[in-house]
C-alpha cells in the first residue's frame, strides 16, 4: 500500500521529475570508467540502499557495524537508505543520472547486465576482481558465484541470500493420504488430484504477484528441454512459440483449470497463500527457501517445522532436464559504485565477505551465498534441511523471466492470470511474450 501511495504521488510529480531528470542527464553524459574501477575515491559514509521489503539485510549490516565490522564502521560509518522494491529501477536510474548513487545499492536485474543501463556506463563494480585482490574470493560459495554470473552476465552482485526454489509440502497430509514425494510431473498431477479430492488445496498460490505461477512454466521448460532452454530463447536459437515451450504453458493452464491452485488464486496475495500452507489448509506451495523465515516463526507455522518438507520440481517424462537441477537465485542485485570504491569501502567489503554468512545464519536462519566462517549452533531443522540440499547441488537453473527485459518480465507476469483463467490460449501467451523479447533486441 505504501508503494501504491508513493506511486500516486510520483505520478503527480512525474512531469516535473522528467524535467529534472533530463536536466541532470545533460550534466552526466560521460560514463564508462569501469576499466580502473578500484581507483575510486572513498565517500563520506558507507551508504547502503536496500529494499523496504528486505529489512533483514539492513538489520544484519547494522549488526555487523556494531560488531565484527566496528573498526570499518568507525573509519566509514554505515548509513542505511531504503526504497520500495517496485520503485528500485526508477530511483536508481534517477540517482545514477544525477551522479548520486549510494556506495552499495540494490538494482534491477536488467540494469546491471553488461548491456544494461548501469553495466554499459561502468557503474557496477566487478566483485570477483576486487575480492580476489582483497584475498577473500574464497568467502563466496562457488555455486552462488556461478548463479550471480549466469543471471547478470558478470559478478556484480553480492549473494546476501542464496535461495533455491522448490515445492514445499506438508508431510502430515502426504502421510495421511499415503503419498510419497513425486518424482515426475505426471505423478505430481496425480497426487494433486488426490489431495484435492481429500478436501485440501493442492498448491497454495500467490497469484496476485504472478511469479509463483510463471516459475512453474519456467521449471517445466527447464525439465523438458534442459537448463539452457531459456538462454536459447534469448540467443534466438529457439522460440517460445515452439511446440515444447507452448506445452509448458498448457500444462500450467491445465493445473489451474483442474483447480489445483485453489479458489480465487488470481487475487490471492503472498501472505494469504503462506498462511494457507502453514496452517495446513494447503498441501503444497511453490516458493523459495526464503520461506524459512516464516517456517521458523512459531507464531506463523501451525503445522510444525517437522512436518515441512521441500522437494524439487519433478522431472518431465522424456525431458532433457534433471530433477536435481534446482532453480536458484542470489536475491536482488546488490551492486557497488566503482566511483566510490576506495580503500575504506574495500575494507567494508572484505569484512562483509568474512562475516556475513555466519551472522545471517545465526541471527535469522538465512542461507546466504557467503562461506560460514564460524560454527553456528542451534540452527532450526528446516534451515538445516535447506543447507543440506544447497550443499548437495551440482547444477542450478535460472527462473523463467531471469534473462528477460523489464517489459517482457512484466508481460509474462501480468498475462499469466489470463492464461490460467482460460482467457488466453497457451499459444497466444507465448507468442505475445516472444514478441516482447523480440522487440527488445
Amino acid at each position, binding site marked *: 500500500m505504501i508503494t501504491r501511495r508513493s506511486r500516486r504521488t510520483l505520478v503527480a510529480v512525474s512531469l516535473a521529475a522528467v524535467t529534472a531528470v533530463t536536466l541532470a542527464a545533460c550534466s552526466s553524459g560521460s560514463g564508462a570508467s569501469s576499466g580502473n574501477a578500484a581507483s575510486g575515491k572513498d565517500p563520506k559514509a558507507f551508504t547502503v540502499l536496500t529494499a523496504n521489503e528486505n529489512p533483514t539485510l539492513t538489520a544484519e549490516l547494522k549488526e555487523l557495524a556494531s560488531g565484527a565490522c566496528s573498526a570499518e564502521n568507525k573509519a566509514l560509518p554505515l548509513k542505511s537508505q531504503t526504497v520500495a522494491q517496485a520503485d528500485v529501477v526508477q530511483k536508481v536510474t534517477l540517482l545514477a543520472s544525477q551522479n548520486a548513487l549510494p556506495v552499495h545499492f540494490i538494482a534491477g536485474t536488467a540494469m546491471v547486465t553488461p548491456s544494461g543501463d548501469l553495466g554499459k556506463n561502468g557503474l557496477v563494480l566487478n566483485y570477483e576482481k576486487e575480492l580476489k585482490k582483497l584475498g577473500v574470493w574464497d568467502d563466496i560459495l562457488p555455486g552462488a558465484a556461478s548463479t550471480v554470473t549466469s543471471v547478470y552476465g558478470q559478478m556484480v552482485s553480492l549473494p546476501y541470500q542464496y535461495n533455491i526454489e522448490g515445492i514445499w509440502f506438508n508431510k502430515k497430509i502426504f502421510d495421511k493420504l499415503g503419498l510419497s514425494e513425486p518424482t515426475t510431473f505426471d505423478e505430481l498431477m496425480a497426487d494433486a488430484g488426490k489431495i484435492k479430492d481429500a478436501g485440501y488445496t493442492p498448491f497454495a498460490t500467490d497469484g496476485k504477484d504472478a511469479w509463483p505461477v510463471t516459475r512453474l512454466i519456467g521449471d517445466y521448460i527447464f525439465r523438458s528441454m534442459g537448463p539452457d532452454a531459456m538462454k536459447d530463447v534469448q540467443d534466438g536459437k529457439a522460440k517460445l512459440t515452439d511446440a515444447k515451450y507452448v506445452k509448458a504453458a498448457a500444462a500450467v493452464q491445465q493445473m489451474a483449470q483442474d483447480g489445483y491452485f485453489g479458489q480465487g488464486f488470481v487475487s490471492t496475495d503472498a501472505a494469504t497463500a503462506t498462511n494457507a500452507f502453514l496452517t495446513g489448509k494447503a498441501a503444497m506451495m511453490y516458493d523459495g527457501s526464503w520461506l524459512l523465515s516464516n517456517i521458523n516463526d512459531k507464531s506463523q507455522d501451525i503445522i510444525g517445522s517437522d512436518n515441512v518438507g521441500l522437494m524439487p520440481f519433478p522431472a518431465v517424462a522424456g525431458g532433457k532436464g534433471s530433477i536435481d537441477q534446482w532453480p536458484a537465485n542470489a536475491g536482488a542485485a546488490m551492486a557497488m559504485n566503482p566511483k566510490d570504491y576506495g580503500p575504506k569501502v574495500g575494507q567494508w567489503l572484505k569484512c562483509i565477505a568474512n562475516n556475513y554468512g555466519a551472522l545471517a545464519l545465526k541471527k535469522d536462519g538465512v542461507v546466504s551465498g557467503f562461506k560460514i566462517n564460524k560454527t553456528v549452533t542451534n540452527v532450526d531443522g528446516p534451515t538445516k534441511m535447506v543447507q543440506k540440499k544447497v550443499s548437495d547441488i551440482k547444477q542450478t537453473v535460472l527462473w523463467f523471466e531471469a534473462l528477460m527485459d523489464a517489459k517482457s518480465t512484466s508481460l509474462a507476469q501480468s498475462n499469466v492470470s489470463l492464461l490460467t483463467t482460460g482467457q*488466453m490460449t497457451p499459444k497466444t501467451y507465448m507468442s505475445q511474450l516472444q514478441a516482447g523479447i523480440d522487440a527488445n533486441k
Partner: protein
Amino acid sequence: MKRVFGDRKTILILLGPTLVIYVLLKIVPVMWSLGLSFFDGNSLSGFTFTGFANFGRFFTDPIAIQSLWVSIIFALLATGGQIILGYLLALLYVFVLRKGSAFIRTAVFFPMVLPTVAVALLFRNLVSVGQNQGPINDIINLFGGKSVEFLASSVGTMAVALVMTYWSSMGFYAVLLYTGLLDIPDEVIESARLDGANGLRLVRHIVVPLSMPILISSIIFSFNSTLKVFDSLLALNNGGPGTSTTPLTLYMFQTAFNYSDYGYASTIALMLTILCLLFTLAIFRSSSRKAEA
C-alpha cells in the same frame, strides 16, 4: 475596485508570482515532455533523436491501442453513470426530500473524501473469493449461486471499477448539479405546473434545459477526470488481468518508470493530452450549438 484592476502594475504584482510558478511547474515540464517524445532512451542511457518513430510505435503497439480504448471506454461509462446518477440524486434532493436533504446529501457525498486507494482496497475485499471470501460472494452463495472471481476477468474488473467510481463520486456530482437546480426560479416551475407539466415532462422540458450549463460543465469535468483514471485501476487490479484494464495513464507510468523508456512514455502522455483536448472540444461544440438553438 475598478481602479485597482485598471492599474497594470497592480495586475503584474498580483499575478506575477503565480504566473511564474505556474509556468515553471506546468508549462515548462509539458513542453519538455513534448520534446522528449521525439527521443528514445532515458537519463542514464542517454537520449537519441528518433523523429516521429515513437508515434509510429504508438499506433502499432497493441498494448497502447488497448490502453487507449480502456481509457475511452472507462471515461464514457464512468461519465455517463456519474452524471445520470448524480442528476437523479439532485432531482431527489430538490423535488422529493427538499429541505430535509442535508443528511442524505452529506452521506452520499462522504465516499468522495476517502482516498481512492483505500476505496479500491475496500472493493477488492468486497468481491474477493477463496480463503478470505468477501460479502458479495457470500450473498451470491446465499442465493445458491457459485462464487464469482470478478477480478479474474476484464469485464468483471471493469464492472467493479465502475461501481466503485459511481459509489465514490456520484455524491459529488449530485451536489454540483443540485446547486444548478436550485438556481431555477420557483416561479418557472410553478407556472409550468399550472400549465399541466408534471413529473417526467416537467423534468424533460423545463428542468433539464434550464440546468443545461451546469450539466455541460459537469460532463466536461467528469470526462477529464475519468480519462485520466490511474489510481483506482492500479490499486484495484494493477491494470489486469493481463493488461486488459490498463488505461493510458498507467501504461505511461509503467513505460517511464518501470521500463525506463522516457521518450516513448512522453509520447503516450502527449496522446493522452490530445485525447483530453478532443473530448473537451467535442463537448464544447455540441453544447454551444445547443445553446444557440
